[in-house]
């Protein structure tokens, strides 16, 4: 089926990186130093070009997106839909299987599509420092891009699952090959954690297929489609609660919510800078996106039943994540990246809390927070990358006084740091405030408890800021970063670092002052979503004895 633009834009969006991957693989690599260098440059710029075209496509989608159509469970109001039968056969024993190639977007996914395109584009620039197996790196990078984009546009559960697994493989190699000293441990930890979630998802998916007779996520949202006496038929059955919990845990691992989060600090510490950026910027959102796209609307009854539990998970993630981040200055290697990894746990907790509120402010705030956390944390990891590339260490204790050595860098850093601590005027504040205002309606005390996160968040961020940027510069850094002057001609930022950081900073400031461009994308869908969920949630609340 054709999209409303006359060409299948979502397919292009998803599979363009595959074309890029093939191009990268075709680049010949010479034997001598010089020709190798040239081929590296070609591969880098192929990736820049491909992700840039992808970004342009995402902007085309943004410009042509009709903000008045809700989507969510209503197939006819999804946009840029592409739908075709992909696999249809009669298997012996298991019966008839029909899997669709079903893509489409609504207000819940447009922000994520934009985010993915933006982050994948900017993260190419810090990838320029990769010197090891460059061809494999960019091939994996582009494959990862396809997997992530696919997750956000797939409306067929099986297809969603395929993209979900497709993303896993390149990520495993990107951490495991191009990572730090404990890369194997981190990669396998990431892989197994995600796989556990995938297994849960797979089981529930098969159960849903047998209950509904279709892999379409939208069909699964309509209780009338469930065959009588099938496993998930009816509402408020124990098996549905169990299935929801399985899905929820599967997605919570990805978010990651406490207590399923310990893969994240290791993965971040070991991953190279651009992979950290993608991991925090996009991958984590797949968890909360899975909740809002799949787990919540397919099992709205269970959302009501477990609503307070979900809110608790959000609150604990916020406070515990912040405490762990603060604790990094007493425990462990005092790794800058680990601190930011824990801050991600805390900030993604806001998303879960906002979703649990089931209020328009809260859900809008949650999706907006997903976008904002994506841009802000991408910046934070690139900021760490900037000094890591120069100093080859990320120890918080080893720096000081960088503000004098790198004033522009410090200025840009402040945008990201202050956005992370929720300073008004920057985008993070609006989403956090909306989450709070929404969740206070539903859970006043949990919201107040979560408020501790904003104090702790300021504490660890300002502490890190002071350690690294204020005070006096240690003598060992009191010389040009790279004596050869090859990579870092001056002390401060270089062009490709500007290219990566400045667009993000501008987005953060712009959306902080005028959030409507992003909020208006999702308003209709969010309101529709909340209204759709409401009756089930109320009954679920009642049954859980709230």
């Amino acid at each position, binding site marked *: 089926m054709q999209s409303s633009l006359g060409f299948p834009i979502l397919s292009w969006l998803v599979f363009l990186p595959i074309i890029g991957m093939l191009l990268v693989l075709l680049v010949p690599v010479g034997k001598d130093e010089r020709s190798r260098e040239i081929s590296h440059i070609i591969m880098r710029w192929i990736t820049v070009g491909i992700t840039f075209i992808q970004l342009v496509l995402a902007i085309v989608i943004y410009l042509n997106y009709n903000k008045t159509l809700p989507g969510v469970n209503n197939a006819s109001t999804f946009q840029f839909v592409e739908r075709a039968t992909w696999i249809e056969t009669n298997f012996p024993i298991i019966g008839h299987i029909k899997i669709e190639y079903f893509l489409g977007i609504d207000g819940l996914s447009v922000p994520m599509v934009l985010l993915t395109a933006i982050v994948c584009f900017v993260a190419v620039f810090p990838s320029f420092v990769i010197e090891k197996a460059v061809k494999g790196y960019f091939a994996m990078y582009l494959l990862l891009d396809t997997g992530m984009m696919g997750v956000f546009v797939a409306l067929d559960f099986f297809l969603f699952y395929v993209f979900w697994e497709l993303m896993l493989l390149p990520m495993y190699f990107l951490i495991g090959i191009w990572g730090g000293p404990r890369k194997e441990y981190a990669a396998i*930890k990431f892989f*197994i954690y995600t796989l556990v979630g995938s297994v849960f998802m797979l089981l529930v998916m098969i159960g849903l297929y047998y209950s509904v007779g279709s892999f379409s996520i939208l069909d699964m949202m309509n209780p009338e489609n469930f065959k009588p006496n099938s496993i998930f038929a009816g509402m408020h059955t124990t098996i549905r609660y169990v299935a929801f919990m399985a899905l929820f845990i599967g997605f919570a691992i990805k978010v990651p919510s406490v*207590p399923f*989060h*310990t*893969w994240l*600090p290791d993965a971040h510490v070991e991953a190279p800078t651009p992979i950290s950026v993608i991991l925090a910027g996009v991958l984590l959102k797949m968890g909360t996106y899975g909740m809002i796209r799949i787990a919540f609307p397919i099992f709205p009854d269970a959302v009501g039943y477990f609503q307070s539990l979900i809110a608790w998970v959000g609150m604990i993630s916020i406070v*515990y994540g912040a*405490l*762990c*981040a*603060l*604790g*990094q200055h*007493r*425990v*462990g290697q005092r790794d800058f990246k680990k601190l930011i990894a824990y801050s991600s746990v805390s900030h993604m907790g806001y998303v879960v809390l906002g979703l649990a509120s089931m209020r*328009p*402010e809260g859900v*809008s705030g949650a999706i907006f927070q997903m976008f904002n956390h994506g841009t802000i944390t991408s910046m934070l990891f690139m900021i760490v990358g900037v000094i890591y590339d120069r100093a080859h260490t990320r120890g918080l204790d080893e720096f000081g*006084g960088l*503000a*004098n050595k790198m004033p522009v860098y410090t200025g840009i850093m402040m945008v990201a740091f*202050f956005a992370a601590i*929720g*300073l*008004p*005027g920057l985008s993070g*504040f609006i989403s956090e*405030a*909306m989450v*709070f*205002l929404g969740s*206070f*309606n539903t859970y*006043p005390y949990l*919201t*107040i408890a979560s*408020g*501790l996160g*904003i*104090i*702790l968040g*300021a*504490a660890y961020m*300002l*502490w890190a800021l*002071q350690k690294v*940027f*204020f*005070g*006096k510069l240690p003598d060992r850094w009191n010389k040009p970063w790279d004596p050869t002057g090859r990579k870092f001609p001056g002390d401060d930022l270089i062009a490709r670092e500007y290219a990566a950081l400045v667009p993000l900073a501008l987005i953060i400031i712009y959306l902080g002052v005028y*959030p*409507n461009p992003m*909020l*208006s994308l999702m*308003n*209709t869908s*969010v*309101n529709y979503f909340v209204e759709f969920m409401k009756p089930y949630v109320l009954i679920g609340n009642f049954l859980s004895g709230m």
Partner: protein
Amino acid sequence: MSGVGLITIAILILLLPLVSFAANIFFGKKIGRASGILATSILGLVLILSTIVFYFKVFTNFTPTVIGSGNTLIEISNKILQIKFTWIDLQSVHFKVGIGIDNLAAIMLVVVALISFLVHLFSIEYMAGDPRFSRYFAYLGLFTFSMNGIVLANNFLFMYIFWELVGISSYLLIGFWYEKKSAADAGKKAFLVNRVGDLGFFIGIMILYFSYGTLLFDDIFGSIAQGKLPFDSESVLTLAGIFVFCGAIGKSAQFPLHVWLPDAMEGPTPVSALIHAATMVAAGVYLTARVYVMFTASALSFIASIGAITALLAATIALTQVDFKRVLAYSTVSQLGYMIMSLGVGAYTMGFFHLVTHAWFKAALFLASGSVIHAMHHAAHHLGDHHTDPQDIRNMGGLRRTMPWTYRTFLFVTLAISGVPLTSGFLSKDGILAGTLAYAQLTGGWHWLIPIAGFGAAGLTAFYMFRLLIISFHGTPKTEVANHTKENNWIILLPLFVLSILSLWFFYSPNPFDAHQGWFPKAIVQPKSVVPEETQWEFLLINGYNQEKSHGVAERVPHHYLNEFEEAMHHAHYPAMILSLIIAGSGILFAFLFYQFKILNPDTIVKQFPFLYNLSFRKWYFDEIYNATVVAGTVGLAKISALFDLKVIDGLVNGAAWLTRNFGYFVGYFDLYVIDGLVNLVANVTGFFGSMVRYLQTGRVQTYVAFGVFGLILLIYFLL
């Protein structure tokens, strides 16, 4: 000037300092020293515009009109000129915001603009030669922008947003010399302590938003007036008020969150004058005045008590400090306590009046201290002396002769803060003390502690201010550095003169002994509370008085009291004045006896009461207590969490992995030895038999023939 015109000007006032910020951040390095002049000129323009707004808002009338509809609405009335528009639109939910100018805001705009302008001017000289000169002016611009935002906000959302933004400007300016660890620490401390108060503020906002679904002051107060209470409970309304007031506790450095302000003196001295004395710290008082109508009697009592405790506590600490700026910092805390106390007891007008008068003389005091420190610093630099602390008053003395003009202005504003007649400080302080007396009379019981604290603090203020003056300016120079100080140039002195002249009585009232005859009480009239009458103080209920008229100028009927409280306050006016004159006079007298004439020796007192001395000198051990409890507790909890994460949760994960792996090994070995063992056993047995049989396969023909014959015999045997 029309209301719409004034609103337009107000938007300019708000945005111009932001232009200054942006220009200095992006081009400051290029234009060098001109950045200071650029910023100062922009602020000069802001000052002119603010004065225009002030004049037309306070002294002219407006015909009530409403312009626009739907998303943007402009409302003009004598009470307030405001614009409201939808900022965040979620279709089902709208967040409306806007700016408004009432008399409170109009007066505050001038205070902010004038002090900010003078501090900009002062800083051109004071900060000359600083490597981050333009950055400094950028931050000042950011601060002025945020502060004007607070002043103009007509909703809680903007209030909170600009509240946080002044917090960050304060953070940046306190830590401006971030190479010094103490400065960076102080900035961080200020921000974090304020965040605690801000969390309370935000909880208050959440309660109100939950209850009323809007954040506009008008809408919220209107709903309360109609009897809609949060959670249908008067106590929640009280609680909401107290939560909102938490913001003021943080920003206005009230007990128990006052600890950040003295440390904030690590910032450049003009910053201390602008932010940490005159304007930003007064934002808490401004907020309290702004949302005054939603406080119940219980909330007001709470506010009055916090203010009284702060006023007295900080005054006792200021007695023994030896750092020039720290004495002033504690004096600021104490005076802010005064204002908060005044609002709490119901003397609304006087509380805000004190904010204004205090802003001038405290800014003057700080700029004078800046003048002294600048001179000391230069003298020390000149002498090549790097050990003498230019801020320690024990290193000063005799500055009266070397810096006569600084001395004169400092003396004059010291008189003002001590509450000596003919100064503005006398007018406002006297009004506050009369208010506390009236309050105690009308409420009785423990409430008498509030005027006692107020009068006590007044006496202590006079004492420590003159102690500061005498030790640093009188007598003989204690150090060579003090002896070599020189008077500063006019850029530094001009702001001092302007601010001290503004501390004369006649700007506010023709009668130097009664503020009520001036324009101020006509411009700022206590607003009518919106909370249910039974939760208000009965004596604050406004009887038979047309509230709408009060915002004009001429309507106020002479000798007609707003409420019972005002009447009592009027009667308490003369007793309070006499009492405060006696108390302040004795404070000054004792300061002279101790430090000028040395008839009394402070050291003997220190020796006699070491505990009291240490309590004061160590600031009541607040920092130590907080460090040992809250800070250590949080850091400890953070450490435990991080360890828990590393050892327990990750331990479980790794443990599970270990178990799985070892189970895998076990299965592997089982496979290898048991299952494969069985297979191999079968094979081995077969092999064994095979090998046995192999012996038969000798390869020799004789053996085969023998076997063949043997087989043939067996065959025959069985067949037969």
